[in-house]
């Protein structure tokens, strides 16, 4: 057997009391496509950050081509031939493509020469890019191209990709796989981080599986099924949810008619002529790649941003387009935004204060402008019990909770009020499988009891599992909602990429 390209042994990384990596071994052979699998929070990102010199291991060794190496900073990793494509891109919106590339190169090189080399590399790999464009003008797919091209310009021996398809349409992902095949054909190794099992089976010949910061298995993913890989990742059987067979026929609860809203952020995407109907007992899924107007849609439906005309949004037949978020709450609507910390909850405030964030308008926690602390605490206790929120003290600060537990709290805070309409964005983003299952079940139960539930999500599998009908948001326009039964992943994927 030849010398491994990269051989990490016994890597340990602690953050305070949390052991993010617990004696992790990883061996990547030259030219190999190696998958790093695991749930959110399993320690994948921590591991690759150590391999890229961004974090320093507390213990363990890294060897490159058989020689022990020390990686104090990314520059050292790049010098060895390690390139990295980040999950949340490391790009600068107000700088040009060429400047973004220059920032990732270690040798000082005049920007015009970089632009020329950039054009050459992007042509060779079929990844077209305009060097002079500012990044904020580019689509998500184009942004990822910058990340890949600037890695390739350093002629890497190992390319690390952290969840590269989480922001791409299925068709864009397919394009990425073709590029990766070409990169591998040149003898470069790929370390591919994902929790999408089908992709891993399509691309990789080796997989290392992490759970709770430990390596639990090494396997050839092509010899496994998606189900067996999932069992190794989660550690138990994954129960599949089933939505009702036939779409419900209840009365329309939420109706949107011809709604157009400009984006708040000058670089953002607004809404163009959106129409939809949502019935009692129904779960409507809004699919789409991030950055296609999801934020504007949530803001308009919740009332954080008012619609141009009142009759563009009807709640139980009443025109509420010009009513603010609390007026809509008083009419029985509830909302869960995408960002847990900072939007749904204030990180440094106690959970009881955070109960008040959405609860002050319509739940008896406030009388004559005075707070009823007893009721606020009672609400925290009720949510804790109903949603199995795990926390130390009775009323900790929001930032002290893990992602999954805080998400259970912010979803539970709304679901417990039995709202007639629930609008929820990315209900299980970055949440462990246990919490995700509990949250999805709660949303389905809510719909079964007669509420209308609108789920905005980039996770197509989640929508296919939960929704009765799915509509696709692209460049601020919403396709007609269609019953899930008649839809395929491919059909939705095409719409997510803008094809009719």
């Amino acid at each position: 057997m030849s010398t491994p390209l990269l051989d990490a042994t016994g890597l340990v990384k602690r953050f305070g009391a949390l052991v993010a990596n617990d004696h992790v071994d990883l061996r990547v052979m030259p030219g190999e496509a190696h998958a790093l699998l695991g749930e959110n929070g399993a320690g994948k990102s921590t591991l690759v950050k150590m391999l890229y010199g961004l974090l320093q291991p507390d213990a363990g060794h890294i060897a490159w081509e058989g020689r022990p190496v020390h990686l104090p900073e990314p520059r050292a990793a790049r010098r060895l031939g390690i390139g990295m494509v980040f999950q949340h891109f490391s790009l600068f919106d107000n700088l040009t493509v060429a400047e973004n590339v220059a920032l990732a190169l270690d040798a000082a090189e005049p920007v015009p020469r970089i632009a020329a080399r950039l054009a050459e590399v992007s042509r060779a790999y079929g990844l077209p890019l305009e060097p002079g464009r500012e990044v904020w003008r580019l689509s998500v797919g184009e942004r990822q191209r910058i990340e890949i091209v600037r890695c390739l310009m350093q002629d890497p021996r190992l390319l690390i990709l952290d969840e590269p398809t989480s922001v791409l349409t299925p068709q864009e992902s397919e394009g990425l796989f073709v590029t990766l095949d070409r990169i591998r054909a040149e003898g470069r190794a790929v370390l591919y981080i994902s929790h999408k099992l089908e992709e891993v089976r399509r691309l990789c010949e080796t997989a290392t599986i992490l759970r709770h910061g430990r390596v639990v298995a090494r396997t050839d993913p092509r010899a496994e099924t998606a189900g067996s890989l999932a069992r190794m990742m989660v550690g138990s059987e994954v129960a599949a949810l089933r939505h009702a067979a036939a779409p419900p026929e209840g009365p329309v609860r939420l109706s949107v008619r011809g709604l157009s809203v400009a984006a708040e952020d000058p670089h953002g995407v607004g809404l163009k002529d959106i129409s939809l109907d949502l019935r009692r007992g129904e779960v409507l899924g809004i699919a789409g790649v991030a950055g296609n107007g999801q934020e504007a849609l949530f803001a308009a439906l919740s009332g954080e941003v008012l619609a141009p005309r009142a009759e563009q949004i009807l709640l139980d037949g009443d025109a509420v387009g010009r009513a603010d978020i609390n007026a809509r709450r008083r009419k029985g609507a509830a909302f869960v935004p995408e960002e847990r910390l900072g939007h749904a909850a204030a990180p440094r405030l106690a959970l009881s204060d955070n109960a008040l964030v959405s609860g002050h308008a319509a739940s008896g926690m406030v009388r004559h402008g005075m707070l009823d602390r007893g009721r606020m605490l009672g609400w925290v206790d009720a949510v804790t019990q109903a949603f199995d929120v795990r926390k130390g003290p009775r009323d900790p600060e929001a930032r002290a909770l893990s992602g999954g537990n805080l998400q259970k709290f912010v979803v539970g805070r709304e679901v417990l009020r039995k709202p007639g309409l629930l609008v929820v964005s990315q209900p299980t983003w970055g949440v462990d499988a246990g919490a995700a299952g509990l949250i999805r079940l709660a949303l389905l139960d809510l719909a079964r009891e007669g509420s209308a539930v609108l789920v905005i999500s980039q996770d197509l599998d989640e929508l296919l599992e939960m929704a009765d009908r799915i509509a696709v948001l692209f460049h601020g326009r919403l396709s007609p909602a269609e019953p899930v039964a008649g839809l395929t992943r491919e059909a939705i994927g095409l719409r997510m990429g803008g094809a009719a």
Partner: protein
Amino acid sequence: MRRLVLERRMETPWALTLASPLLAVGLTLVSAVLVFLAMGRDPLEALFVYFVMPVSDLWGLQEVAVKATPLVLIAVGLALCYRSNNWNIGAEGQFLMGAMAGGWLAVATHGMGAGAWVLPAMLAMGALGGALFALIPALLKTRFGANEILTSLMLVYVAELLLDWLVRGPWRDPQGFNMPQTVVFAPEATIPLLMEGGRLNLGTPIMLLVVVLVALMVARTLKGFEITLVGEAPRAARFAGFDAKRLTWTVFAIAGGLAGLAGVLEAAGTVRMLQPGLSPGYGFTAIIVAFLGRLNPVGCLVAGVFLAITFIGGENAQIMMQMPLDVTRVFQGLLLFYVLGCDTLLLYRVRWVRRAEA
């Protein structure tokens, strides 16, 4: 080689929130000793003059209360601003504006033998004048997005120059030997003293009442929660349906109103006239008071008393030890540095670690 590393805390122990300002005060005292030594003074004597003498007799205690009154009044309002991320640093101007608005009534009714209504009316005018003046930066911020730090500060200079013009021009005391000052306010336009043999006046109980009211508002009302939430997490505040712009108006008006009230109390209670040097920088020192008090009304009360002691201590040191008054400002600046630095302990665990060998 070693270096400083910050580790985020998941939870702040409550004892630390109390210990952090005390630690800052302690560090300031240590620094003060070093400064005194550097200046060739006996540090023990200097510390005694600065921090002990002001509180060693009844007259001194009264002076402390008199100085603490404007500091605390202003700081409590500023605390509301800073809690909600509104950086009003123009309280000095709002203080002077309040003094001028209230003082106008005293000057206009002087010698007319007006009734007991004058004093309450002066206080109301003072609060109103300060509030309206504070609403200028609020308006410029919400309407045009102009940076309130710069606009509120620029208005301090404008208010100072306006006062200067008034007391040298239209409001100058005709019998004042051309001194730049107004007439000495008539008894009905003067805040009543609380006891003989001192300057303690009704302003101090008013200040204590304000502290209680604002403390209640912060801790127990929805409006107080709104102020806190807007500062802690602006997007969550919008999600809660709170209007950040309207809140900017509210907190600027309250802070300006309290600063204006402090101004008229100072003019009608302590100084009894308008003159250019009406404020020894109360509006700026109150910024330190607000932070030292952890933006909490009761904390501001404690911090205000402490800063008042340094004010008087500084004056004593100038008289008794020929120490420049600016030394007090140096201590105040240092204190704010230490307060901010110690606050880091609340959010982060600070550690020295050995730099990884490169």
